[in-house]
């Protein structure tokens, strides 16, 4: 197994409040690492540190280091980092423009593609996000008018268009019905071949369905991490067991 991301002794704070405590964790290449844990356990904080979205928050500070392919992400250009580590938010946020433009937006601005290739990029990204068939006839209509599940897959396609190496999903299905959820999961499993995925979910079943490995966070600490099958069948820690069997809190 090749190591994609290595987190060393990471502590995160908002003002004086500590959100992550001495975190050591690795993400392997082409795996889906699921992160489960109750509310306020620091899952989102962890994801937003991985692609430095927390840089924008003046209250945020951290110590410890994170390496992406052995390169310290805090010494990288944050914009460059975010093209390598894409992020999907809990609420789908389509930009107020057409479906096509939503996907072409970042490649255009970043100058990644010439115009001729753009159609191909858009089509391929939509296909990879399992959305192409539903929208191919209305690429130039507003993205805001799509259903929630379609919007979330559009946001996935938008990330795929910049060809990142790692994709961070923050509770991508929390607002979706079971069928939309199944479609997003299907897209995710397909993506595993090309990308490394970190999936935060408050749905324990989802973690067990798609996760290669699963990590359990509690109050800003990593309690346990293991192969998904192992963690769900024989958790080593009592708290993990309580959480996955639904006896928690």
């Amino acid at each position, binding site marked *: 197994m090749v190591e994609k991301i290595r987190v060393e002794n990471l502590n995160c704070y908002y003002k004086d409040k500590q959100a992550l405590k001495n975190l050591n964790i690795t993400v392997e290449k082409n795996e889906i690492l699921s992160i489960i844990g109750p509310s306020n356990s620091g899952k989102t904080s962890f994801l937003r540190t991985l*692609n430095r*979205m927390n840089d924008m928050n003046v209250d945020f500070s951290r110590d410890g280091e994170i390496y992406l392919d052995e390169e310290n992400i805090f010494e990288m250009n944050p914009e460059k980092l*975010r093209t390598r580590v894409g992020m999907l938010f809990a609420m789908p946020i389509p*930009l*107020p423009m057409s479906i096509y433009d939503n996907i072409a937006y970042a490649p255009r*601005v970043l100058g990644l593609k010439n115009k001729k290739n753009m159609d191909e990029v858009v089509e391929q990204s939509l296909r990879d996000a399992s959305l192409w068939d539903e929208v191919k006839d209305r690429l130039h209509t507003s993205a805001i008018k799509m259903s929630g599940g379609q919007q979330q897959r559009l946001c996935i396609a938008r990330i795929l268009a910049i060809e990142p190496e790692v994709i961070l999903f923050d509770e991508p299905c929390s607002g979706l019905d079971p069928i939309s959820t199944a479609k997003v999961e299907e897209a995710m499993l397909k993506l595993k071949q090309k990308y490394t995925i970190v999936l935060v979910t408050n749905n324990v079943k989802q973690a067990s369905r798609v996760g290669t490995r699963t990590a359990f966070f509690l109050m800003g600490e990593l309690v346990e991490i293991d192969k998904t099958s192992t963690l769900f069948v024989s958790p080593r820690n009592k708290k993990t067991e309580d959480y996955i069997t639904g006896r928690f809190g």
Partner: protein
Amino acid sequence: MFKLSPKLSQKIFYTLLAISTAIVIVPVLLIVFIIIKNGWSAISWEFLTTMPTDGMRAGGILPAILGTLSIVACAICITLPVGVCAAIYLNEYAKDNMLTRIIKLAIVNLAGVPSVVYGLFGLGIFVMLLGFGVSIIAGALTLSIMELPVIITTARGALNSVPYAFREASWSLGVSKWQTIRRVVLPNALPGIMTGAILSISRISGETAPILFTAAAFYVPHLPQSMFDQVMALPYHLYIISTQIPNMPKNIIFGTALVLLMMVLSMSLFAIIARLYFRKKRKW
């Protein structure tokens, strides 16, 4: 104590509200009506396109119209870009510290300074210190400084109305802060900024005090030729002909007022319609 039945008290309050609305609207309608009634007869193509004659008792008001237009056009060209840039800086870049909070407070308070104070400021700085003399440019600079707080405030409102989530979505794709502002924030804030700008234009077209010492002249026998010319301006011209000139025909006074009023009202109306249109078209 006696108690009103809910139905009766509802009726009473409804009537009170209707009356206060009428108190606001009736004087406005009355003013417009009186001005139209007395001024309509003066309005003609000639009136709008010729020089005044006979000591301004006859002829047209072309120089005053052009004077006002040139001062206002110059002013908005200065104040809009500066104001929008300041708003972008304050909203999107400035850290939330003591200094920026003081600046924001100052901007809000500057909007309340009486316009004659700006006029005296303009006289001191632009006319005398910088030596522009009484001129279009001095008047425009004075008006633009006066309008700057309003432009900044409306532009900040328009920027704030663009959801923060759009910025985050854009940043998360590796797009820089500036590109995000340029491609996502500004295009969506533009309708708000533009309607604010139109309202500002309409507001400063009617201002007299700031241009009194800085740009306006009693009478200029020719049309404005350069930025450093003194000009006649509609609001000041109106003041002159209604108070300083004996035997002034009444319909010319009201006709001049009507032209000014139409200029201001049509722009406000345009801004309101544009705002409604963009609100309807808004995609989120």
